[in-house]
């Protein structure tokens, strides 16, 4: 099972309190992971990627295994440690402040 860590506001929308466990058939890519996430939690449609373009919303980042995977292709396979559930896939709201 793949573990997805959502930012607090998306956890609230999805009504979960911890990492989300997803079963994603291989090949496990970001696009397929997000498809599975949105299928399980339709309220998240449009909150991580745009409805029409399917592009990442500009202020969201994707981290895993201490790497920034944000700018990798959505169709590239995710690291083995994410696929086998050893490491979570992190959806992160970009830092903002002032």
């Amino acid at each position, binding site marked *: 099972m793949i573990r997805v860590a959502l930012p607090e506001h*998306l956890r609230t929308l999805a009504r979960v309190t911890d990492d989300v466990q997803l079963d994603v058939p291989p090949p496990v890519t970001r696009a397929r992971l997000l498809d599975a996430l949105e299928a399980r939690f339709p309220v998240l449609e*449009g*909150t991580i990627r745009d409805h029409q373009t399917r592009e990442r*919303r500009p202020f969201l980042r994707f981290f895993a295994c201490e790497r920034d995977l944000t700018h990798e292709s959505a169709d590239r396979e995710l690291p083995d440690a994410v696929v086998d559930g050893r490491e979570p896939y992190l959806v992160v709201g970009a830092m903002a402040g002032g």
Partner: protein
Amino acid sequence: MSRVRVLVGTRKGAFILGADGARRDWSVSGPHFAGWELYHLKASPVDPDRIYASQSSGWFGQLIQRSSDGGVTWEPVGNKFAYDGMPGTHQWYDGTPHPWEFKRVWHLEPSLSDPDTVYAGVEDAALFKSTDGGLNWSELSGLRGHGSGSHWQPGAGGMCLHTILLDPVTPGRLYLAISAAGAFRSDDDGHTWKPITKGLKSKGIPVETAEVGHCVHRIAMHASRPDTLFMQKHWDVMRSDDAGESWVEVSGNLPSDFGFPIDVHAHEPETIYVVPIKSDSEHYPPEGKLRVYRSRTGGHEWEALTKGLPQQDCYVNVLRDAMAVDQLDSCGIYVGTTGGQVYASSDAGDTWSAIVRDLPPVLSVEVQTLA
């Protein structure tokens, strides 16, 4: 005894304020949707427990929330606002063509007759409609495609459709306003539109009397006289007595005719309210005094309402959707500020008090009068 429920949208959540008809003791519920921008909340006039809310965030985009129990519980409904067909371009700030891009919902206007029908005014400017309680949204694209859309240009706050008025008398008639395209009217349920800007004059656009390009900030109507419209423009307070076919300026003796909201007394269709702001670059009250101005003559002659409002060192703004009136016999007026106060008057503006004082910046205020 009647009650009032005040729906307050802020930069960091929604708040619901409640009081009995005396309007002295207030309860505060919230924040709902903590941390999100709530541009607007509005209830159905035919089902007061049905409330729609526009929830958005720079990180996570747009959601629409719906309550069926007066704001106690909420459920997210549809958030897919897809422009009809190829959206084309409007003008960007530098005059170049820029693709139409959905950003957020500024205003929600529930139908006068059906609690499941609601209109949404969005940025980039377009009008959407749902007939299933907000689950699905369709663009009424006759507005964007009526001919002048490619010439519309955003104001500093974005190219937002922020005002939707539903005519309670003439079937199929709607009005709307867009910054900075102007005002429009439809007589066929929103399928086709015409600019209603004759008489408007705006400095800062190439042709001061152009058909489109005026930065209309807000339009208000009294239900008993829907052909009479009042407008707060970027500069100038205007009125029309022919359903927007022509406008005349009624700024009269206001200390500044720049401002954002305008509203009409619940029972006196010639009594109107504005909040003058110093200028387009200094978005705070003249002289640091927060004054609501009232005209009992439909404009031209205005009186300052100050009792209970801060009269020194006050540098807040009142945004376009942040003034509302209740329907009680002694009409209540409500004003929300960017400083987080909501001021209320239960005597048509003669005296005021803060019913809540330290909210996040207030984006919108709506009032329900409940049996």
